[in-house]
């Protein structure tokens, strides 16, 4: 574990410990009251989910076309994080929706497209786990296609249904709500970066051990 990762992890842990007080200090929202405060964890999770998806797609492209072995480890780490944070977003979302909209799930554009991108990354992990030899390359292709698919999923689902608030709400938030929000986004980002570099390092070491085993067999 490098010093940078230790600092990131420590800072993220401190921020998450402080988060309940920061969120508690934010005022109640006019129509939803206390319930909306899940937003402070929901939205950062969703953003980290998207960030993970983008990092995985870009790293896969670099692996596939640039033959950079190191990028493959980054792609795996980012895809796993996309699934973890995607799951967080998909669990906190319905909890909030139940109170705000009265139902657990609606087939709204943003929910549906998040679910689909989440499924693509679950498929990515399944392919990696059960694909056998050569699965690293295949899953890189999948991640690349998944990334190219995001706008199509979004447009098609958008014309299909829409209910979720637009992202443009963020700049219009009052400062008293904005500070806790950005605090949480930053905490999630630190956690994301720390986990990304830890997992990528682990993956690189695993690949190296595999390569050593193979060369030992041949010797």
């Amino acid at each position, binding site marked *: 574990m490098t010093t940078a990762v230790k600092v990131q992890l420590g800072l993220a842990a401190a921020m998450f410990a402080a988060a309940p007080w920061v969120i508690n200090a934010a005022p109640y929202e006019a129509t939803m009251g206390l319930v909306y405060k899940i937003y402070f964890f929901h939205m950062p999770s969703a953003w980290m989910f998207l960030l993970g998806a983008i990092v995985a797609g870009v790293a896969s492209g670099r692996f*596939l*076309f640039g033959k950079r072995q190191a990028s493959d480890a980054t792609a795996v780490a980012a895809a796993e994080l996309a699934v973890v944070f995607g799951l967080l977003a998909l669990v906190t979302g319905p909890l909030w929706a139940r109170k705000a909209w009265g139902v657990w799930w609606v087939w709204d554009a943003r929910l549906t497209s998040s679910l*689909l991108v989440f*499924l*693509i990354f679950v*498929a990515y992990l*399944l*392919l990696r786990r*059960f*694909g*056998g*030899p*050569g*699965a690293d*390359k*295949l899953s890189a*292709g*999948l991640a*690349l*296609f*998944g990334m*190219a*698919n995001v706008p*199509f*999923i979004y*447009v*098609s*689902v958008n*014309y*299909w249904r829409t209910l979720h608030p637009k992202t443009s709400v963020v700049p219009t938030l009052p400062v008293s709500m904005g500070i806790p929000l950005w605090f949480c986004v930053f905490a999630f980002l630190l956690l994301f970066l720390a986990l990304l570099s830890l997992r990528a390092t682990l993956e690189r070491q695993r690949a190296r051990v595999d390569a050593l085993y193979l060369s030992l067999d041949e010797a």
Partner: protein
Amino acid sequence: MTAFLRVAALVVRKDLTVEVRSLEVVATTLFFAVTVVLIFAFGFVREGLAVEGVAAAILWITVAFSGTLALGRTFERERQADTLRALLLAPADRPAIYAGKLAGMLLLMALVEAVLVPLIGLLFQAPILAAPLRLAALLAAGTLGFAAIGTLFAAMLVRARSRDVLLPVLLYPMTVPVMIAGVRGTAALFQAEPDLDLAQFWTALLVFFDAVFVTLALWTFEPLMTD
């Protein structure tokens, strides 16, 4: 360009020759498609009449299911005889081989759809002749999008373990835009008063989808199929 087309045409001819001799994929896929439609009929027909508005969904789900089956079978045949390796060893452009495989797949799926659409018109009282050209355009665009991704994924999964289950697992989330656009567009055409503008919007989206994913597949086929 001519060399590209020639290689693609040769691959199509090879696949057609193999298929015509055995009819394995065509016969099983056609029968499978008819069975799927019947299963849907038992799910959606009440009092002798189909629930309103299900015809479009049944059509596209059946296309996706039978397409997956055909993709799996086509490449399983290449794997068993190890002929895909021979094909890839041939001194030809890899993208041209992909294009040939895709064209063969499209021919097969067009054949299945030629049986499927009248069958659904017959069993679910869908007005398939209300706007036949637009329906054909929508089907063609949707099938191309599905087959473009499907052919690439099936080809790259040839060497993978548990490929049978992985193909639909990878293919269905990826082709959801095709399903949504196909079902919504077809439903717009199947209404009592066909909504041509809406169908055209979904067809346009599909054409755009096709352009992006055919390009991306041609571009990634080479690195994905190289050991």
